[in-house]
């Protein structure tokens, strides 16, 4: 068995008296989609933030491809290959859609200290960016400002950015939210293809998508993982049905 891409041990994070992450251990393996589900406020986004380095845990450790990244900042983790999307889209709103992706290409190339040369005429930036945009189906929207995208399109753009970064693991925080039926179906297909190259930790409320995609599901309630297993195991688990699935028919 190969070593996991992401390995989290005994992670804990409190906001004042609130235990948002309570002794969480979790792995993401090569080739898999690991879904993280749980009611609102369970601490899913907080966990993603800690893996990406936008929040620091109180204790516990996070490894990426065997390397301890617990104390690295968000930029360092991104350089090591952690790509993510935000639950609330986080883009450069004035930039065109294409420029938003080019920024990630530039980040991957670590070439931000070049002071000359027009970026828009630079094929080594625009070509990979266009490729990532066509992967998510946004190529026709390349020239418009990111602020003019619909909610669903912003999600797609964030995924394109993570792809352009050359991510070794993807952390997606509710990527289907705000997408229509067709949109989520297209995204489901895309994620199904992506997992071959890049394992995905998927936070998602859309149960159709989760059941269609997930190799494993972990259920987070009040900061704790209360169950973890295959789709079938989670569907059958009475505790999960009561705590979560039952509440959302």
């Amino acid at each position, binding site marked *: 068995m190969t070593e996991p891409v992401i390995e989290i041990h005994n992670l804990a994070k409190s906001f004042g008296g609130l235990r948002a992450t309570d002794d969480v251990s979790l792995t993401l393996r090569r080739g898999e989609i690991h879904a993280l589900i749980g009611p609102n406020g369970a601490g899913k986004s907080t966990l993603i933030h800690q893996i*990406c*380095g*936008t929040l620091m845990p109180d204790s516990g450790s996070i490894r990426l491809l065997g390397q301890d990244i617990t104390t690295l*900042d*968000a*930029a*360092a983790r*991104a*350089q090591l290959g952690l790509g*993510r999307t*935000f639950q609330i889209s*986080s*883009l*450069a*709103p*004035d*930039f*065109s859609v294409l*420029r*938003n992706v*080019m*920024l*990630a290409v*530039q*980040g*991957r190339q*670590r*070439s*931000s*200290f*070049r*002071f*000359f*040369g*027009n*970026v*828009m005429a*630079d094929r080594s*930036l625009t070509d990979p960016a266009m490729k990532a945009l066509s992967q998510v189906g946004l190529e026709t929207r390349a*020239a418009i*400002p990111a602020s003019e995208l619909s909610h669903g399109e912003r999600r797609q753009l964030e995924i394109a*950015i993570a792809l352009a*970064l050359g991510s070794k693991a993807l952390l997606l925080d509710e990527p289907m939210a705000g997408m229509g039926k067709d949109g989520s179906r297209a995204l489901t297909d895309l994620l199904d293809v992506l997992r071959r190259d890049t394992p995905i930790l998927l936070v998602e409320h859309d149960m159709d998508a989760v059941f269609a995609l997930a190799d494993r599901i972990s259920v987070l309630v009040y900061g704790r993982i209360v169950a973890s297993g295959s789709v079938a195991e989670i569907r059958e688990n009475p505790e999960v049905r009561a705590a979560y699935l039952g509440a959302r028919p």
Partner: protein
Amino acid sequence: MNRETAFNLVLAAVLLAAPVIAFAANEPFYVALATRIAILALAAAGLNLALGFGGLVSFGHAAFFGIGGYVAGIFASHAMYSEPLPFGLPATDQMPVIWLVAALLCALAALPIGAISLRTTGVYFIMITLAFAQMIYYFAISWPAYGGEDGLSIPVRNSFVGLNTANALHFFLICYAVLMAALALTWRIRDSRFGMALQAARQNEVRLAAVGIRPFRIRLTAFVLSAVLTGLAGALFADLNRFASPSMMSWHMSGELIVLVILGGTGRLFGPVAGAILYVLLEYALGGMTERWQLFLGLILLGVVLFARGGVVGLVAGKARYD
């Protein structure tokens, strides 16, 4: 050619043509006025790099303007009496050498000031840059060797090979050339990879970090470059007035530079030029009519902030767009 480029060319042409005509008509006052515009535009172009493209509201850029001014003044006075400079540097009145020293000193000052100030954001950044500038201001006025509160006069303007800097038009052309070079540099930087990262840092630093680029280093580099350009303007300003004054470092000056950038159009390439033209002409026109011309300037600024956020360039060329 889009509207903004056309407007920029018009501004560049007018700023060049006006003093040439004034000189031919034997009106040196207007040549000096245009020189003042060019120099303030250069100082504001420096600030625009940090404030306009990077969103860093520095309320301390007068410090760099003043450092440049004092470098010009100190070199001029040493060259006058052929005294060697501190650190055994030979005295010279050659502008390119003076500019180089001014640029280096401004970079050296901006590095720690930026490194500390950039740990903060928003109002705290504004306040801490102001505090640093005030420290340098008080240092200047308590330094008797170079004039203290009286400032430092420059009996003979520093020189430039092949030109007569005492000639108003020659000196204008030097300032104009430096301004255009600075704007060309700003233009290249704006469209470069560095410029893209800098403008992304202004919009959303979390996004920038998420693609593996540290906002801090990008901003610090921009802050230092910005200080260098403003410092060059300071050196020219002292030569223009034949005087390096501590008031060049006062917070009024920092505020004036911010006003120039906002009036002209924040983050627009020729915003500082438009801002400086408008500011100096208002100062000249209103200053002749009333002592309280700054009150009217305040009202105009209020109007810009409330109704024309893109400043003059925004009014003429519309909102900035990134293709």
